[in-house]
């Protein structure tokens, strides 16, 4: 058993020091009725080669994104991750460290997180960001709860352009509380109107930009509406690379910005772990959930970093904390931060341009598919298309998968009870898509439609 250093001789010697006859003695506080006499009837230990074979076999049952023309987005995006990211991530000093509670031996993690917070605040246009949440969906729910806490109101309006999984997570989070969520119907055309919905009971409006079906909106009018009503505007960004080309939520008046950070540094990983980014205004910082790193000085006056403002957190405030969150996504934050550092301001903008360009190119090519129409007026790297009134997008996706093409996500997967969304398919294109990928998708669609 390669992970266990003790030998039988060690165990014997240690028991002697302890004064116990056997390891079983050490478990004497366990009620006899609950003790297991020996290993459970499950497989025994295996060598690396055997385990690796088992995983290779399971991996072989999947069609991986890199082996197919790939146009799936809907909250998780495929981007090229520079090789340096993962190699740095694997450094044991990062990988095998705990939460940086002991700052003197954790300046690496702490400085990295301070840089991460700074990067997140910069791209979102906000004052301050925390050191990460589990994922975009939970960050979005936490933002709604925080808005209720700040406004002392209980009503959360959720745009129909918010990712349905996020909306569900948010609803679930409020389910047994005083707070309530008003989730608007799906909005494939991006025509949703908030006027008249926001009132004096509204704690916040939660919108996603670009929206779930692709629409990119100028949020300034909505921000003004919210602020006039004493409500906060929470902006969710599911694809943060869009911030290289779209005005930041902060600049458009958002009070809280949450993002799913998976797009940078992390790859797909079947959707988990994700990386929740969470940013807000300075004035709300003490209402914020999650860990924060702050700058300070050591006894010699040298600049350094520590975890700070922890009186918001559960380990100090217990049931009065701003959240129950403890473990965050530190390693994912590192991946995100390295990738963003490698891009720099210049590369971040250029990457966004390449993504938008890929999507406009895809739109052009899709004109060859009869009956298909792109739904949103504006988009970044993703848009919903309508395949024709009789089309079943799920069946189309299924048929194309058999041809080795991963052709987006049918809207019906999220909205099974909305028949008018049956022909709607959500397609994403990124810098990883070649002309050939797009041609194969178009040819595939022409065949199966």
């Amino acid at each position, binding site marked *: 058993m390669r992970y266990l250093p003790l030998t039988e001789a060690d165990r014997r010697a240690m028991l002697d020091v302890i004064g116990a006859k056997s390891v079983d003695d050490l478990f004497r506080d366990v009620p006899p009725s609950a003790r297991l006499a020996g290993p459970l009837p499950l497989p025994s230990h295996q060598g690396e080669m055997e*385990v690796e074979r088992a995983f290779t076999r399971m991996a072989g049952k999947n069609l991986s994104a890199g082996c197919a023309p790939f146009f799936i987005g809907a909250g*998780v995006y495929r981007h090229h991750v520079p090789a340096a990211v993962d190699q740095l991530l694997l450094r044991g000093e990062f990988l095998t460290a705990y939460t940086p509670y002991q700052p003197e031996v954790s300046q690496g993690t702490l400085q990295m997180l301070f840089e991460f917070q700074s990067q997140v605040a910069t791209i979102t246009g906000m004052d301050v960001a925390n050191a990460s949440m589990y994922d975009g969906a939970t960050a979005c729910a936490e933002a709604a709860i925080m808005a209720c806490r700040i406004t002392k109101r209980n009503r959360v309006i959720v745009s129909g352009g918010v990712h349905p999984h996020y909306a569900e997570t948010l609803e679930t989070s409020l389910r047994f509380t005083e707070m309530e969520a008003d989730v608007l119907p799906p909005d494939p055309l991006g025509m949703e109107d908030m006027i008249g919905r926001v009132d004096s009971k509204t704690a916040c409006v939660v919108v996603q930009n670009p929206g779930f079906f692709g629409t990119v909106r100028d949020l300034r009018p909505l921000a003004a509406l919210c602020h006039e009503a004493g409500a906060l505007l929470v902006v969710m960004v599911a694809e943060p690379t869009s911030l290289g080309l779209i005005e930041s939520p902060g600049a458009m008046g958002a009070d809280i910005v949450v993002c799913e950070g998976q797009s940078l540094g992390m790859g797909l990983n079947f959707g988990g772990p994700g990386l929740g980014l969470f940013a807000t205004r300075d004035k709300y910082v003490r209402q914020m959930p999650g860990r924060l*790193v702050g700058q300070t000085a050591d006894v010699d006056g040298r600049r350094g970093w520590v975890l700070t403002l922890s009186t918001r957190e559960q380990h100090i405030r217990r049931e009065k904390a701003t959240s129950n969150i403890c473990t965050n996504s530190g390693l994912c934050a590192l991946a995100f931060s390295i990738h963003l550092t490698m891009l720099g301001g210049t590369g971040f903008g250029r990457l966004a341009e390449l993504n938008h360009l890929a999507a406009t190119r895809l739109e052009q090519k899709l004109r060859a598919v009869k009956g298909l129409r792109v739904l949103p007026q504006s988009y970044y790297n993703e848009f919903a298309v309508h395949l024709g009134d009789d089309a079943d997008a799920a069946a189309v996706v299924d048929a194309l998968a058999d041809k080795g093409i991963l052709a987006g996500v049918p809207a019906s997967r999220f909205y099974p009870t909305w028949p008018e969304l049956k022909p709607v398919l959500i397609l994403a294109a990124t810098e990883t898509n070649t002309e050939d990928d797009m041609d194969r998708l178009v040819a595939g669609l022409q065949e199966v439609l």
Partner: protein
Amino acid sequence: IEEKLIFELGNPGSVAVDLPEPAPFDLERLGDAPRRGRVALPDLSEPQVVRHYTRLSQKNYGIDTGFYPLGSCTMKHNPRLSEKVARLPGLADLHPLQPQKTVQGALEVIDTLAHWLKALTGMPAVAMSPAAGAHGEWCGLMAIRSAHEDKGEGHRKRVLVPESAHGTNPASAAMCGYTVDPIPALENGRVDLAALKAKLGPDVACLMLTNPNTCGLFETEIVEIAAAVHGAGAYFYCDGANFNAIVGRVKIADLGIDAMHINLHKTFATPHGGGGPGAGPTVLSAALAAFVPVPYVVHGASGLELVEGKRDGAKPFGRVKGFHGQFGVFVRALAYIQSMGSDGLRQASSDAVLNANYLLASLKDELSASFDGPCMHEALFDDRFLKDTGVTTLDFAKAMIDEGYHPMTMYFPLVVHGALLMEPTETESKDTLDQFIAVVKGLAAKAKAGGVEDFKAAPRLTPRRRLDETLAARSPVLRWKTAAE
């Protein structure tokens, strides 16, 4: 060597990612909110980036670099095989929304891991999607509340939590709309069963208990506790943070527990990564099984099936995160579990408990042990041994850093004064423990011999010495700003 911030290293025009010059295009499709101007991030080249993060990493301590006896955190060795298989393209390069027939292997990973978790705990169901321990607690409480509501007992809103509990317990209860009622401990570090019984009543939703508890002790009366809780119509939630002590030696179901989260990143050896990610699948008893949140995996007619919505018989309480759980963590945990096997997992918990008792036995004369042994996976000391030395628990911890060790957990649990909580885990060798014991004894002797000055000055050998936490909190500087800002 000092390491600048990336914002101080940048050089406009450098690039660490060569991207093609985009073809000219108009912004017609981008809508009416195009960004004006470049995002103010620094530009660096690849050599600068690699060196920056390499140097930062050198300012960190990890399990790979030394012994990390941080109590309640289970800092065990992270297997390298897990990192390798997690990077297989057929597992890493999968989108969660691919057609299910193209991800049967991924669903098999989830299903196989779920099988192990159920078998190891003896529980009939598991919610796989919680992202971390606290998230799993909340998930378990949501299931409990759903079950009560389902039975028409929605009025049960009081949750009993021992004073020694992790802060996440009361916080999770609060997020579920519950109120928290603390229960006291006995002299021997266990729950006071009589006090517990006195607190039980028709408004109690559940008891949240950590077992082995945060003092590193097994709750000897747990079966009686479960009976009392159930007798009062409440459920029994167990915080599984310390599951590593008993895997393969105790089945959770046999203790009468209704829900328990499992910190895969602790018990099943996935990396903590400086704060996460973790994963907190929550096993559930038959009474709660129907309420498992979506999505979950079932065996269907055409293979494995991911259930994302309503389905006959199930009453999911909702959805707890974006996609299907911490898949990358699942892969690593399953690789560990399959490597260890049933025999290895039992041996691991046995060795973890053995190592902790060895520390306790070896140090109990020099430090002040809070409770008599045997302990489970961690050994708890308090600061009586430092009485009148002028040295505090904090000082003692910082002095350990200069000796090459990560400090133990300090000042937790709160039920003893100036706690020092040590969890060696099973992946440390006797040689490592012996060296550690010698060092700790040496420091204790030094403290008692009047070496307080040295302790106050520690650590000396770190990139930074003691940092001013008050300053950080009083005038928060939470992001980099240019001189102009």
